């Protein structure tokens, strides 16, 4: 029996905590190392995403007949290419980067090219292993997911 369990039993014997509280603490003490071991094992076993898939389903208005036709965009970008691109952004002179940021901001994309870091991409990919980003504005449906 480890120290934590002994302390909980002592607190219960002294009447400092109720039986329910003691049971909850026991579960927490027993469960915590197991949970952390499982989660660290999962993290180690989890493969690194190799691609980022972007799928866009939308309707495009035809210039000639004015009708709306379904339009599909399917993009697969290798993660290694994104990393190489991020490295390349560090070479862009400050003035040029500011102009690019300004042009992107006009299009509604607020990105600071000089602040792009590889760690940010790693964080994003870690998050994408567990979820799929879905955006639906009524006109188009965008899905972003990681692939292996």
């Amino acid at each position, binding site marked *: 029996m480890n120290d934590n369990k002994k302390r909980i039993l002592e607190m219960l014997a002294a009447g400092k905590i109720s039986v329910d509280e003691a049971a909850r603490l026991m579960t927490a003490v027993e469960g915590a190392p197991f949970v952390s071991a499982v989660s660290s094992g999962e993290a180690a076993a989890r493969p690194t995403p*190799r691609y980022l898939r972007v799928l866009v389903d939308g309707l495009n208005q*035809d210039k000639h007949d004015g009708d709306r036709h379904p339009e599909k965009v399917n993009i*697969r970008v290798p993660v290694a290419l994104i990393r*190489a691109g991020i490295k390349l952004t560090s070479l862009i002179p400050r003035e040029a980067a500011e102009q690019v940021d300004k042009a992107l901001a006009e299009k509604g994309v607020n990105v600071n090219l000089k602040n792009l870091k590889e760690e940010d991409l790693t964080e994003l990919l870690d998050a994408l292993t567990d979820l799929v980003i879905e955006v639906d504005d009524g006109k188009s449906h965008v899905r972003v997911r990681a692939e292996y």
Partner: protein
Amino acid sequence: MIWPPLLLHLVFPACRRSWGLWLPLFLIYPILLALSLLALPFLLIAALCLWHFGYGRLTLMALPGIWNVIWKARGLELNIGEKNREYLIKFV
């Protein structure tokens, strides 16, 4: 080992149907490499001249950076489909 894209698959609409084209990129690499080696001394001189203006590092590192991007483009795929038309750019 990471291999560069060896083929480029293009699909584009023309005359009521889609056309596919396979371009052998592996044949272009030796030419590009030779051109890069030829351009290297000139790039070094240009980098030295532009160093004071803040563009020296960019000139010096642009070539390896571009090669790095080309090398890692394998698997890049762009597919756009609308109405009866389909466009595809795929680095294989």
